[in-house]
């Protein structure tokens, strides 16, 4: 569905993403894990059209995303849930959701999408007239996901949805991600929370300083000794564990 081939993204001389190829199949959760600065967010922002790749190809169902502007990519169904949520802080929950569904394709499905979103997040229904910035971090993350769902996505790009949330809320968010997949949505999930991410990923890539170092099913990557050592703190060299 989404194909990235030999993608290079440079910031000046720095290669943030260095010759990376990934494939996301329909109905899958595909995880990209790695430490801070590995190039994960750059990847997702390049797919979203916020950053342009230096070289490589980027296609979504045959459309060349590198030639499309960021808002056109969203309208085509490639929708990002940005890192740090990026809500419209002075708008109500309801208004945030309306903004998510303002483009033509989503507008026609507005009422169905509202039903869907409020079934997934009943708490947002209770809070719909509250101003977004007054809600808790977990609730704000739910708004961010709900807002993206309102724009009728065909693939959801999630950038660190667990960032800065309490463990119990993180559980909830990952459960939602699985629910969305079960509803038929395709998800590209970028996470520093390696363990959780790999547990629910159908396929996963490990990114290190801009390069792919490992790929496989979520289970394969999770059980790979290298992943255990470097990301899960379970290897022989305990001192090199990060995250």
């Amino acid at each position, binding site marked *: 569905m989404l194909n990235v081939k030999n993608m290079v993204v440079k910031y000046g001389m720095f290669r943030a993403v260095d010759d990376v190829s990934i494939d996301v199949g329909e109905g899958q959760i595909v995880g990209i894990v790695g430490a801070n600065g590995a190039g994960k967010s750059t990847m997702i922002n390049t797919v*979203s059209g916020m950053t342009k790749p230096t070289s490589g190809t980027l296609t979504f169902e045959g459309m060349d995303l590198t030639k499309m502007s960021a808002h056109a990519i969203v309208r085509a169904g490639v929708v990002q849930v940005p890192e740090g949520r990026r809500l*419209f802080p002075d*708008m109500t929950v309801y208004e945030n959701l309306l*903004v998510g569904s303002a*483009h033509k394709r989503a*507008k026609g499905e507005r009422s169905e999408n509202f039903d869907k979103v409020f079934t997934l997040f009943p708490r947002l229904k209770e809070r719909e007239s509250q101003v977004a910035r007054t809600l808790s971090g977990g609730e704000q993350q739910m708004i961010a996901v709900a*807002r993206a769902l309102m724009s009728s996505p065909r693939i959801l790009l999630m950038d660190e949805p667990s960032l800065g949330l309490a463990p119990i809320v993180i559980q909830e968010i990952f459960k939602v991600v699985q629910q969305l997949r079960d509803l038929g949505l395709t998800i590209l999930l970028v996470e520093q929370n390696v363990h959780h991410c790999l547990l629910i990923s159908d396929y996963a890539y490990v990114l290190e300083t801009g390069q792919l170092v490992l790929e496989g099913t979520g289970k394969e990557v999770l059980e790979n000794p290298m992943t255990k050592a470097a990301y899960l703190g379970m290897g022989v060299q305990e001192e090199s564990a990060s995250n």
Partner: protein
Amino acid sequence: MNLNFSGAVLSQAVASGIMLGGLFALMSIGLTLIWGVMKIINFAQGEFLMVALYLAYFLVARGHIDPYITIIITVPFMFFFGIGIFRATISPILKDPVMNQIMLTLGVSLILQNLALMLFSANVQSVNTRYSTWNIHLGSVVISGTQLIALVGSVLCTLGVWYFLKTTDSGRAIRASAQNPTAATLMGIDVPRTYLLAFGLGSATLGLAGSLMIPFYYTSPTVGVFLGLIMFIVVVLGGMGNLLGCFVGGLVIGLAETVGAAVFPGSLARVFTFSIFIIFLLFRPQGVLSKRQT
């Protein structure tokens, strides 16, 4: 000093102040909208109003059109005029340092002023319409009918813009782009186009102001200098980007002008207005209605 506190004079001053305040608010909506959405300080806003006043003037004086009917021409004209100026000058420097933007809009204002001087001469122009002598008597207080219409127009325009921003998809797109342009883009909003719309709208409100002012005001190439200054005071007083605050700010400055003129002799009145402004800057720099500083 000859201070005059007679009740009749004061109530007349308050009535005139409210009329003038409504007018000031109407002039300033565009400036506060443009600042609120894209953080551009448009120093040419006063000259935009000058353009609208000239347009209204020519339509009334030469075209013999009723001043209130000119609205259907001035509003769309100013909308596209604003869009044209934005496309040609402001759009390319949206991401540049603030100082460059200030210099640019200041440059646009000078060009417009001098173009007007070249085309229309330095003469002050005004029109006589059948509305000119229309006065409404409320006891001892006399209200000019045309100024009352401007006040009503100001209230309707403020409510209209507010309603548009609050309830339509385009309006919400404008607010979303103001609050977080990156997130707005990620929600499929074409932010540059939204900016263009907001700038056009901010300019169109001046078309309305021009048509409503021309029956009792005048126009000249430099009329925008003083009016632009008033706009800035009103907008800062109301809290930059705050629509309802803009209306309150307009009323405060309008009242300060007329009450000041009734109480203090001659040009001391202006001292009163600016003193009020300075007091607000010292004690409430975020504006009358703003709850928090942004």
